Structure formats: C-alpha cells, structure tokens
C-alpha cells in the first residue's frame, strides 16, 4: 500500500489520535485487510506505540490482519437467523467452498466470515456478500448465490 494514500487518510482526520479506529477502517478498505507495513507506518507517523495499534486492530471484529479474498461473505448468526437455520447455511458454505469460517479459498476468490446480526431479522437466515444483503436463504439456494459472484 502506498504511503501517500495512508498520509491522505490520516490527514482527513486531522491526524487526531482519537480517530485511530476510523483511520484503520479506511486503510482497510484499500486492501480489505491491514498489512503489517501499514500498521508500522501509522504507528510511526502518528506517534502511537505499535502495541496499542495492534491491540485496537485485534480488539475490533471489523478489522482484520489476515488478507481476504475478492469477495467477502458474511453469514449472519444473529438470534433470529440462528433459530431459522443460519448455522446450516454457514455449514453449507463451508462445504461448498471447502474452507472453515474465517478462512479464504485457495484461489483467493471468497473469504467466509460470520456476523452477529445485521438487523435484517425478519428475512432470516441472511448473508451479506460484498455489502449486498441476501434474505430468505435456504441451503439449496447457496449454490445459486455463489454463482452470482464470479
């Protein structure tokens, strides 16, 4: 990731240390994860100890230190989705993609993650792919869903 890009993100928040979460989130939108070099640079530039930055990066679920694939699938496991079979949707995806939750497929196409409620409970079970929400899922709809993302 280019240093100038990080600089401009930090600049957007006036270099305020309290904006560290937002800064990391913005950096993450570029590569979909937080590369080590980027964290080191932020630490140096903003004069925040790397340990503190690492603590924040590992505390918040939205931040990831692991590279992600081209498409990110979040399966909702909120309570309503859970009682309506969200867990089965997740397992079907694990089987179809051949990876456990939290991992990325070998071809770097999909990353499978879970989310605890996106507030779409009436249409559960739901999953989010690249920000688009898919409601009223069933195990037999999963293959069709995957085909939409090439």
């Amino acid at each position: 990731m280019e240093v100038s890009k990080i600089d401009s993100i930090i600049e957007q928040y006036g270099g305020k240390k309290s904006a560290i979460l937002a800064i990391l989130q913005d950096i993450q939108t570029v590569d979909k994860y937080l590369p080590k070099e980027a964290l080191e640079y932020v630490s140096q530039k903003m004069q925040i100890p790397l340990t503190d930055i690492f603590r924040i990066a590992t505390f918040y679920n939205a931040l990831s230190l692991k590279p992600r694939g081209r498409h990110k699938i979040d399966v909702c496991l909120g309570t309503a989705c859970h009682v309506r079979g969200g867990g089965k949707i997740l397992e079907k995806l694990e089987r179809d993609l051949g990876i456990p939750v939290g991992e990325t497929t070998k071809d770097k196409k999909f990353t499978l993650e879970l989310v605890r409620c996106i507030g779409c409970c009436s249409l559960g079970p739901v999953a989010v792919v690249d920000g688009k929400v898919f409601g009223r899922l069933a195990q037999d709809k999963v293959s069709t869903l995957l085909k939409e993302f090439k």
Partner: protein
Amino acid sequence: MKIGTKADLEKMREMGLKTLYPGEVKISVGMATCGLSTGADKVYETIQKEVEKAKLRMRVAQTGCIGFCQREPVVDILEPGKPRVFYQEVTPERAVELVHRWAENEVVGDWLFCKMEKEDWIGEDRFWNYTIHRIPKGLDGTPHYHQVPFYNKQLKIALRNCGFINPDHIEEYIARGGYFSLYNALFEMKSEEIIEEVKRSGLRGRGGAGFPTGNKWESCRKSKGERKFILCNADEGDPGAYMDRSVLEGDPHSVIEGMIIGAYAIGAHEGFIYVRNEYPLAIQKLRIAIQRAEEVGLLGEDILGSGFSLKINLFRGGGAFVCGESTALMASIEGKVGEPRAKHIHTTESGLWDLPSNLNNVETWNNIPVIISRGADWYSRIGTEKSKGTKVFSIVGKVNNTGLIEVPMGITLREIVYDIGGGIPDGKKFKAVQTGGPSGGCIPESLIDLPVDFDRLTEAGSMMGSGGMIVMDESTCMVDVAKYFMDFLKGESCGKCTSCREGTKRMHEILTEITEGRGKLEHIDLLEELGWVTAEASLCQLGGTAPNPVLSTIRYFKEEYREHIINKRCPAKVCRALLQYRILSNVCTSCGKCAKVCPVKAITGKRKTKKETGEPFNIDTEKCIKCGMCFEACKFEAIEVQ
C-alpha cells in the same frame, strides 16, 4: 436556504408537502436494508425505466421501512383523489404490471395488502386526510391500514415517519411537523422547563436499562465541566433487534432533532452518534441528514438564530458488542479499545474525556420531539404506571408476521405473538419468547399474558433490552439457545474481568457437553453457580447480565435440560449429536431426491423410473453428517428425525 424564523420553517414545510403529496401519481419504494435484501433496488429501477418508457405521468420516490419487513419489497402508490395503496412482495415483473394497471385506474388485488385514507401526524395531533373521489377498480374489500392485524394494535410515535418520508429530504421531515419542537424548545422554553417536561413524561431509556431520561439530563445539566457532550448510542448490538437501524434509515432527522433539544437543555455544544459498523446504510443516511441540517441552519453555529450552537459528529463502531455499554462506547470514541470502566462516578459527571456526558439511545432521542410537541401529560397517559409511552419491538423468529412493531407499554405478550404476529407457522406449538438479547431471557408459555414493560420483564428473569423479541416454537431447543448466547458472549466479552471472560467460556463448555450427550445432572447446579459469580463479579452489564439466558432457561425449561442429560435426547430435535436421520421405507417413494442433495453420499437406494420400480432409500448413519438437506428436500415426509 437558511432557516431563521418560524416563517422560514413554514416555507420549508410547504416545499416538503410538494414532494410528499405532489399533484400527480407518486410511487414510493421502501428501500431500507430489509427492502434492499429482497430486491427493492431492482424494483425501484424497473419502475423508473417503465415510467419513462411508457411516458407515464408518475413520480418514483424512495422511502424507509413501514415495518412489515417480511412482506418486503413494499411499494405504495399515492394519487390525488384516491386512497393510498400498499403492495407487498413486489418483484420487478409485478412492478411493471401494477404500474400499468394503475394508469388504467385498476389495482392488482393479489399483491395488495392494505389501503389508507389518512395519515396520522402524531407529533402535531392531527391527521392528514387524502381527498378521495375516485376509487380504483378492484380496491373494494381491501382492508384499511388499521384493519390489518399486524398494524391494528400499533401506536407509532418512534416510527411515525418511517415509510412515509424520503429520509434524505429534510423538507419532508419538516412537512410532517419536524423541527417545530426544536423551534419551540429554543425560543419558548427554558432548559429547566424542557428537562421538567421530559421528567414528567416518564420516558425511560430505550436502550434497555430503562433509566429515567429526564433525571439523567438533570444530573448532566447540574454537573460542572468546561465542556459537555451529548451522545447517541446507535451501537445496536443485541442480535435480533433492529429498531434503531430502521429509525436511522427511515427517519434520521427525528434523532438529530431530539439530540439538539437535549443538548440545549443540558448545555452541551458537541455531540457524537456512535453507529454500528454493520449498519452501512444507516451511516449513509445519517451523514446526509447531518449535512442537510447544517446547510439549512438547524445544526452547527447559531441554530435558527438562537445563539445556541451544536456540532454533531458521526462515529463508526468497529464491530464490538461491548461498545454498546456506555463507558466502553466512550472509550472507543476516545480512540482506545472499547473496554468498560467502573461507574462509581456516573458518566453524566465524568464521561467522554472525563467531561460530563449524556448518552441516550436512538429511540429515546427520537421520542423527544413528540414529547415536546404533545406534552408530558399526553405522553404519560400511554403505557403502564412505571413504563410510559410506546416501545418498538422487532418481532422475529418462529412467528407468522415478522417485522418492526410499535405498541403501548403494557400490551401482553399474547397480543404481540398472536394478534400482531399472527401466531406460530406450520401449526407448531409456541414455546417461548426471548427478549432483551444476550442480556435477557426466555419467557415461557405460562407467562404469555405478562404485560410487557420494563419491570415486569425483569421480574420474569428477562429484560426489556433494546426490544428484540425472538419467538420460539417446539422445534427450538432451549439448551441450544442458551449455548448460542454463551457462544456469542464469550466472543464479545472484552476480557477485562476474569469472571465474565472465563465464566461465559466455562458455561459455554458445559452447555456444549450437555448438547453433545456428555452432560451430568450436577452440571445444572454448576451452571447456576457460575452464572451467579459471573453476574456478581463483573464490572459492566455485559457480564452482569450474561448468565440470564442460561438461568432463565434453567428456571423455565429444566425438564429439557434433564432430558438432554438423562435420556440423551433433544426433544426439539436440534442438538445434532443426539439426532439420527432415518428414511421410513413405507413412505419413501424412491424418487431419489434425498440421495441427490446429500453432500456426503450417505444415502443409497434404487430410483424409480418409468421402466423400473424403485426400492426405498436408506441412510448410512456412519457417513451421515446430519446436515438436514435430505429432510428439507423430501416432499413426502419420508425422513424421520429421532
């Protein structure tokens, strides 16, 4: 234009009325997250293209969610001289048809779900009546909005504008009475009077704990500090609850107006709205709303020329449930990890950056403008003795009608589940309602006539929480539900207190043992003991209420625990380790569908063809992973789960 006087506000209202009720056909598509997840964006585009192509004189607009999320995408049509009609489950194909039929003064009966002849402008104590002199063909027999069982018992204060206005148009919010309360508060009321009004209204915090809002404001106002902060908690983390998302996506200005009134009453000039990272659309709508409010002079320096200034910042969360706790939320805004601290000193005295800070949740803020306009006397007449007003609930799970509802406090669970929710699908038996998210508990059938308010829910071992109501039927396993919440909480515990960090983990381990057939009877006592320690020894309410899902299920469903432990049986047929799938040979038609869908090829048999008679299929229990695909695929109910 900048609004400086009441006349300016009225002018803005006129502008809003022109887009709310244009002199031509207006088609609105509900485009909140629930609508979008079922394709409302495609419906919107299709209608736009069709109107253009066929050169119809129709306007296409976007709006929020009208609450009946299950029936999304919802589309409504409003034309001068006719009743407003609402269509449900609209697809792009259906949209094309209903637009053309409307042009011929006809409705498509099958997809209609109600009609409306007037709108309730509750903030102004009046109705907006549509003048009606022409009824489209086919509309007779369609129920009125208030005759639909789902809406029949509802009273919408918090959701007053959702589904009626375009959330991006501040003018439309003003048209339905918005920002007039702010005007009156700034120019006709003293800060003390506002606080007194809120106190007298009996409003209690809608985030879950139910602390009296007016008292909180008063103590923040009295606190000394060079600066004060006003905060909005939109970190709606309870799984199964989404009322704040809907309000922010459908009516963001109501929250902003409430916050400005609160800031003025308390004496704060800077504020934050802390929104969940999982709500991208809510963040977008808020950003637009704040910008528009600033542009017209309703937010920022010298609001409406009153001399009062307020800056509101938007803060996006990082996906941590614990940040919904007040002190963790404040730590997060300060740029630290979201860990709670002890609250020997209240945040109203020493909160964000150790300065007096007043935090209320989305629904609380959104109630304020109506309390100011209608007055405390009116508001406090709604609800029960100690819980005033209405509450928004998301009624979801195993119930026929799912969606967002707003009802007066004191309504019974039975009315919610059966009258509004329409009962349990597929003829199954009601088992429990889970309220209060991971901090709450499961309320059994024996308490179904319980009036819903803050105190009664707590007495029953649950709590109000932010308002999620997950209905459970006989096919929901209560031990599994307890395990689900412990799994959630052990992942979301920030780890600061050992009791919470380890307690939730151990409870989860024990529940896993029970659901996998290794449970012992003494586990029940151990769970109760662990629960007690976790609650007593944890700093914040995440740990303090963490055992509720376990304790309440033990309290009301002990038999189910014993059944798992003694007979190694899951009565709800959920706990997979205790289940076996079997094909009933006398019912099996040898269609082979089950074998086709089985991901591990555990099912074999001889398929029936035109030429040959088949043989019943069989499941190899060694290979079976109990995914349930065959059970879902079989049309003949030939697969039995034991």
